[in-house]
């Protein structure tokens, strides 16, 4: 295979310029980034409305479409498929094009596929609201939305892999390992889970195991993988140093793929005891690759963290994602066992990974990418809005994470005692924690709005500057 590739000198001679690379990225990446941010706003608003019903059950009562059982899955699926995966595709395409020094293949085709992805997510969210949800965590989209979703993904991933194959920079940088792994991992877990749950319909207990396995892999390998790809690209870049200790990154990458898929089945109860036991062990083991990867990033930035934080908005997001990844890994390893099953504790993990670890990394990356693809400047037009977006997102994720985590621990304590005042302590007693969650979703909505406004200013300036010449 390597024999057919051009030599490094030839590659450099034929490599497109950065401007050409970015021109090819412009349409699909900006479209995916904008749609992703719009879905972030939609998703957190839906999640906010759902969270109000947790302590105020009469809120919006009487309409089946907006009951908690439909709003919450609709919100989480909108955030996962609409925001997270869609932004991940934007970042993956951009990283492949930039790091591979290659123009995107079929930018128009990618844009059309992304359009269909958005249509499928819209149909899926309305399907959930209409009551067609499948009932499996993170897989609630009905089959009529899941199949087009998979088809659009196949197109996007295929063109991304074709672009990667045509790269002129043959050496794969660390970020591209994670991008490649996540791009190949996602269709595997999605097709396996959809096939087993919706087509062949495995019996009872196995369904819970399959759905739990899919949900964990989506979060732990795919979304955290994309987040790490972004971190490994932007941390060395913003501190302007080479990546320190790549051996750690390599060990962390392979160990994460090996161990990550086994985690987080500890929250399932009605399964044989060995499944939560092994999964709880994996929860602890996965600390090793995560810490190895984070140490590699830390050593890269060491000594320049405060300085870079002040001057670079993107780095701030990266630092937030770095801290949250460490936090969510330790939190799940220590408390994610039998004690907290059936509580909000597990809900917190989904939100922290989707909105925090991945969300902050993606928003930070988009704050770097969007101005380059629109105005050609290094920063988005409004520094204030960028700051607002960062702080609102960080505080929002922390509020949601802390609110759900503490509500979950409190419920677990009630469940573990023989106290019969379940309603008083575990339901109405968690209301204050859940109000914090609502505030957090509100902050996240502000963050998404600030980013979208900044995006709109940049797009407007771009149009004014070049009168549409860039398109």
């Amino acid at each position, binding site marked *: 295979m390597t024999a057919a590739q051009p030599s490094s000198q030839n590659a450099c001679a034929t490599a497109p310029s950065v401007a050409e690379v970015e021109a090819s990225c412009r349409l699909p990446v900006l479209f995916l980034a904008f749609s992703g941010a719009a879905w972030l706003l939609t998703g957190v608003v839906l999640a906010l409305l759902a969270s109000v019903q947790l302590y105020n059950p009469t809120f919006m009562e009487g309409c089946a479409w907006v009951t908690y059982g439909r709003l919450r899955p609709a919100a989480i699926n909108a955030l996962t498929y609409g925001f997270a995966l869609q932004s991940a595709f934007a970042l993956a395409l951009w990283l492949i094009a930039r790091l591979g020094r290659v123009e995107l293949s079929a930018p128009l085709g990618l844009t059309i596929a992304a359009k269909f992805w958005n249509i499928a997510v819209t149909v899926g969210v309305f399907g959930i609201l209409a009551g067609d949800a499948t009932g499996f965590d993170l897989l609630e989209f009905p089959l009529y939305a899941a199949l087009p979703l998979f088809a659009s993904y196949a197109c996007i991933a295929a063109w991304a892999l074709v672009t990667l194959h045509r790269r002129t920079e043959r050496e794969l940088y660390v970020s591209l390992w994670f991008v490649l792994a996540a791009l190949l991992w996602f269709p595997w877990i999605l097709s396996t889970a959809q096939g087993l749950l919706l087509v062949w319909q495995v019996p009872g207990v196995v369904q819970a195991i399959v759905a739990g396995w899919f949900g964990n892999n989506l979060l732990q390998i795919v979304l955290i993988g994309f987040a790490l790809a972004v971190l490994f690209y932007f941390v060395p870049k913003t501190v302007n140093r080479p990546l320190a200790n790549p*051996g750690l990154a390599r060990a962390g990458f392979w160990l994460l793929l090996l161990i990550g898929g086994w985690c987080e089945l500890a929250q399932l109860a009605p399964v044989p005891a060995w499944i939560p036991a092994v999964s709880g*062990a994996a929860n602890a083991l996965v600390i090793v690759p995560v810490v190895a990867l984070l140490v590699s990033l830390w050593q890269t930035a060491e000594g320049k963290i405060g300085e870079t934080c002040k001057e670079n908005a993107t780095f701030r997001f990266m630092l937030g994602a770095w801290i949250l990844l460490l936090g969510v890994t330790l939190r799940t390893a220590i408390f994610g066992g039998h004690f907290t099953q059936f509580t909000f504790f597990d809900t917190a993990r989904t939100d922290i990974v989707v909105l925090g670890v991945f969300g902050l990394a993606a928003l930070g990356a988009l704050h770097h990418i969007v101005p380059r693809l629109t105005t050609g400047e290094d920063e988005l037009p409004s520094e204030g809005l960028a700051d607002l977006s960062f702080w609102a997102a960080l505080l929002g994720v922390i509020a949601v994470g802390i609110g759900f985590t503490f509500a979950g621990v409190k419920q677990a304590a009630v469940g573990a005692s023989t106290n019969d005042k379940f309603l008083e302590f575990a339901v109405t007693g968690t209301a204050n924690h859940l109000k914090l969650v609502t505030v957090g979703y509100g902050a996240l909505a502000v963050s998404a709005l600030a980013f979208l406004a900044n995006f709109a200013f940049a797009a407007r300036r771009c149009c004014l500057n070049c009168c549409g010449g860039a398109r």
Partner: protein
Amino acid sequence: MSKNKKQPAPERAETEPTIAAGGGSAWPFVLLGVVLFGCFLHVENTGGAFRADVFQAGMKNSPPQADEPPEVKSYKRGARLYDACAGCHQPNGLGQPAQNIPPLAGSEWVFREKPDRLIRIILNAVEGPITVNKVTYDNPAMTPFRDALSDDVIADIATFIRGNAGWGNSAGFVTPDQVKAIRDATEKMGTQKWRVETLQAID
């Protein structure tokens, strides 16, 4: 590696991140080993020995069937106690026609709605020619068990004999109270054996 490109790149075309030389640390693998040891302990202690029927962390065997009804327990005890009877009546309950020992399986003396006759036979035995399934047996060898067996044991054995589906019997279970009532009512007989004609009057 992209350093050798010296094209007049625009100012904003910043360089891509590169990888520092060297690197590679052993500590992740050492840490992995340490954590792995703890994980083995965790799985050993809470993994239910990888059995598909163990759902409770910390258990290694499936939980006992605590909710077994008392008559089933009585039947199981009776199955063990029947060993004392099996010498003559055989484990299959068919008796030994050659030795004039009548069968218990399918016997109309056993397989009745009420256990009264059976309990009386176990307590005091029966003598004289007895007709079971149209075959007449005459063997005085059976001994009274009034003083040898307690009410509980007799009830268990009677439950097993009457309810043994393998023998084709499906009569209801017997309680120690029923045995005690008959034992008290027939106290005066001592160890005297029943006559067949007397028993036939009993339902």
